[in-house]
């Protein structure tokens, strides 16, 4: 059984009640800030806190449906995938989220982050 590597590690980051409905909170990680979003239907999504356009902090945007609008230049980003909504193009990283009861956890190791080629040192934190 070589499952050790495939076992998902979940990091508990707080309660869903700590995130405002249609709002966002930030989790700081060594790999950069992660924005957690809560929809009206109590779903939780996690994205890299940087718009694919000019790295605007998505956690500061307005959440509507399952999307967030970036506060800097109003790009609209899909919470589930990190994709920018057409006609804009680009994708920001997303992190798997698990909600058990009220407890929210992130699978940080399985995050698909796009910060690899970051133009700046993510100094906005």
């Amino acid at each position: 059984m070589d499952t050790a590597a495939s076992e998902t590690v979940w990091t508990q980051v707080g309660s869903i009640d700590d995130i405002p409905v249609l709002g966002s909170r930030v989790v700081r990680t060594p790999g950069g800030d992660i924005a957690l979003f809560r929809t009206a239907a109590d779903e939780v999504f996690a994205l890299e806190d940087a718009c694919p356009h000019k790295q605007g902090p998505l956690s500061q945007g307005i959440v509507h449906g399952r999307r967030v609008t970036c506060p800097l230049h109003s790009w609209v980003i899909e919470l589930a995938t990190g994709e920018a909504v057409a006609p804009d193009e680009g994708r920001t990283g997303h992190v798997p989220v698990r909600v058990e009861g009220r407890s929210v956890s992130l699978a940080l190791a399985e995050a698909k982050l796009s910060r690899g080629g970051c133009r700046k040192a993510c100094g906005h934190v």
Partner: protein
Amino acid sequence: MDMHLSSNNGPAVESNEAELHSAVPVRERLVVVGNGMAGMKTVEELLAKAPGRFDITVFGAEPHPNYNRIMLSPVLAGEKTFDQIVLNSREWYDANGIALLTGEAVESIDRAGKMVVSQSGRVVPYDRLLIATGSMPFIIPVPGSTLPGVIGFRDLADVDAMLAAAAKGGRAVVIGGGLLGLEAANGLRVKGMEVTVVHLMPTLMERQLDPSAGMLLQRELERRGIEVLTGADTAEIVGNNREGGEWVSAVRLRDGRELPADIVVMAVGIRPNMALGKAAGVECGRGIRVDDRMRTSDPSIYAVGECVEHRGVTWGLVAPLFEMAKVLAHDLAGGEGAAYTGSVTSTKLKVTGVDVFSAGDFSGGAGTEDIVFRDAARGVYKRLVLKDGKLLGAVLYGDTKDGAWYFSLLKDGADVSAERDTMIFGQGFGSADAGDPNAAIAALPDSAEICGCNGVCKGTIVKAITEKGLTSLDEVKAHTKASASCGGCSGTVERLLAVTLGDGFTAAPKVKPMCKCTRHTHDQVRAAIVDRGLKTMAEVFQAMEWTTPDGCASCRPALNYYLLCAWPGEYRDDYQSRYINERAHANIQKDGTYSVVPRMWGGLTNAAELRAIADVVDKFAIPTVKVTGGQRIDLFGVKKEDLPAVWADLNAAGMVSGHAYAKGLRTVKTCVGSEWCRFGTQDSTGLGVKLERMTWGTWTPHKVKLAVSGCPRNCAEATIKDLGVVCIDSGYELHVGGNGGLHVRACDLLVRVGTEEEVLEYTGAFMQLYREEARYLERTAPWVERVGLDHIKAALVEDPERRRDLNARFLFSQTFSQDDPWAERAAKGVDRHEFNLLAEVG
């Protein structure tokens, strides 16, 4: 492993029942604990599949034959009698050879001896035992919850207790705004009690309905005279002494409110009733644990219904119980291969005249999409949630006739890609007239009210169309006044035209809507908010038939402003509908840091303020300090988490927020005026301070900048401001609608006045006219150009009474908005979550 199926090595001879089964072969003995819906459904199914296979004994704790528990609500409301909801009469039990022992709870199970012992000491042996003990109301553990007069809503005894209380009239408080609580509330209201529903969550039935449908339901219940308190947390149930002893008298909420009560119905949820199984050592979690064949950890003991936990889930609706019962009956009958694997459920509220349906998962998830349909005229809201071409969930309010169709599509996992565009209108849309909105309009009676603003009925409109030969929406508006106010019903009126005229109708050219969520314009939505008294965003979404569940980043801030402007002191600001600058009370910069601008009244400052600013700059290592064009100081590069501490220090020096981020009053720029300047004609600085003190904190459609110049040399550049005052020897000139931005526009001269009091009154009136008439994000310059200076003069100059009213409304709204947001956040911890991380990991 089905040794126990061959059975009957048990001690049949030990039976102490009079009637021994001497016939050969001896039948297996099945004992059912629980005479409710799940247990008896199992027995019914078993009798159908394998009649005569078992000797069956049924214990029921209640003194009745088996009845339809989900129909207790209609019994409470007086729509049905108990006899009408009895499922199986005592004769049926006799005819099927079932020994029914009612009013007799089972106290314990002797697993080793394979027998049960009842309350009265009766001992009945079994070969197989079925536990179907159902559930109990969950009683929230607050002081007073065990007082006489606190009732659950679970069985006929509860209903009788409620009916007895209702017969005396008085007040009922129902704790819990879920399915059961609302049915209880409705029943008690129908029976003449004053009813208040206390619900912890922000919307009713939040597990079954989304916020939009929950809001509609709340309005309907309120219309029926039921008071609904959401976000209300019960702290204590209070009692007093009445004739004959202690009795409940009130419910006290966490916020201190006290609700008088003659009875309290506790309907916050149910808990599996697993005590019997647990005491016998059968494995239990939240309920009695069963596998897919409904077997417990003891191979001779089964469990079904609300008392079980299956795959980690407990159930409280009838459909899953019946599905479990079928699987178990199949198994007991000797069949193989049946397995219960969980249920997809749907919900209907049993309140006569209220059509609510929900099914599946409408909380969605990754990759789901919403289809929303609202018909304000018919009070309909429908929302479907789709994923990968399949229906995942549905919420219907006001029109539930397609609920069963959606539910079957959902359960079957059918591919609905082909129907995607029309399925919201219902089954068979397009092929026939079913679900067609035009057909729905055609089916409305003539007396149906189409235009709520002007009270115009369908019959009136149709008559006008046919008799006067009307062919367009505008003509209908002109002749009947339908849709002439807010326009919310214009879609319905157009459909009426289409239905009445057939091919003779062509729709009006489209106007530019507020955003993609609606077909209505800013002006139509605003008019509806005022004319129809819409006081929440959810009400606007429904009345104006929004096509999204919760709006978008474009319409939400606009609606939040319109509601705030229309209902000062009444509408609660929606925090999540504000742009980040107005949430953080600072200006976000391109790198995600913020800038902070303290207010300097009329551009005046002093040594203490400058010293405090300097200290803050040092303490928080603020990289850039700049003097703004609005005569104040801007601190750039402040980290978000430092904002409350920065404000605390600035507050301590007497400074407040400059609202440099707000769609509101920004600055009042001044020159030094007659106090120092040799040309100055009036005290322009002092007047500027007075104007700023009067107007700060207001919310407006867009930012507003004022200025006061002490003489016509106009050093404060007053004639390119939203409102500029130019002092002259004889008094003051008021200029409006200027802008120094992208399109420079010089002000128009509005009026000349003689006193500062008049300047203040005109300013308040102008601000309010702008607040009430301009569209969100429309500066005064384009607004003045759009409506024309004459329009503004007519309101402010030529109509002194209107000017005074506008000013009074402005000053009234200011009484709710002049709180320093920094003080609230720095000292009182308001919105603390905005500035703190949720967590730091790694």
